[in-house]
C-alpha cells in the first residue's frame, strides 16, 4: 500500500492505493509500487496547486482586470464574458440588471462612458485571517 497526505491549509487530501496483482493476488512488483507512489504524489500536488490561495488570488485579480480593461475599451462581449450567466449589476440607485449576455451588459448605465482606473485592496482569507495588504490589480 502506498499513501500520501497533503495539507493545503484549507483541506486535506488523502490518497491511498492498495494494488494487488491481478493474476496471483499478491503485491505488485517494486516498479508498480513506485508508479503508484508517483501518481499519488502528482495528484496531491495538483490538489495543492488548485487550492493554493496565491493562485486563487491571481485568478480573481485577473478576472477583475479583464473586466476593467474590457469596460474601458467598451467591449461588451469581453465584459459579458467576465460575468456568470446569472450575474447581475446593481447601480448606485439599487437598480438591478440581470444576465451576462452582451445586450444586457450594454444596457448598464454608463457603460459607454467613464473609463476608469480600478484598484483593489489586498487579500483577506477568512479562514486564515491574514492581514490585508495594499496591492494593485
Amino acid at each position: 500500500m502506498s499513501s500520501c497526505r497533503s495539507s493545503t491549509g484549507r483541506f486535506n487530501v488523502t490518497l491511498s492505493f492498495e494494488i494487488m496483482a491481478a493474476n496471483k493476488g499478491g503485491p505488485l512488483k517494486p516498479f508498480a509500487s513506485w508508479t503508484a507512489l508517483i501518481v499519488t504524489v502528482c495528484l496531491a500536488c495538483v490538489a495543492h496547486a488548485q487550492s493554493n490561495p496565491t493562485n486563487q488570488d491571481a485568478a480573481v485579480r485577473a478576472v477583475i482586470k479583464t473586466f476593467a480593461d474590457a469596460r474601458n475599451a467598451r467591449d461588451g462581449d469581453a465584459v459579458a464574458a467576465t460575468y456568470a450567466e446569472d450575474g447581475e449589476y446593481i447601480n448606485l440607485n439599487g437598480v438591478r440588471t440581470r444576465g451576462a449576455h452582451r445586450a444586457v451588459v450594454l444596457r448598464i448605465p454608463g457603460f459607454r462612458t467613464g473609463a476608469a482606473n480600478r484598484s483593489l485592496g489586498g487579500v483577506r482569507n477568512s479562514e486564515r485571517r491574514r492581514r490585508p495588504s495594499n496591492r494593485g490589480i
Partner: protein
Amino acid sequence: MEFVTPNVAVVRAIAEFDEIKTRLSETYVLIKDNDQWKIRVHEAGGTTIMPAR
C-alpha cells in the same frame, strides 16, 4: 479581496473616473464554477468627488 470560502471571493475596488472627477467604490462577488471565476454580483457603491488636481 476576501475569500469567504474556497469558491466565493468578495472584492472591493475603487474606480476613479477622470472624465467626471469621481471616485466610485465597487463590490464584486465572484464565484468559482468549473474552475473558472466569474462575477456573480457587481454593485456600485458610494461616490466621492475627487479633489482638483
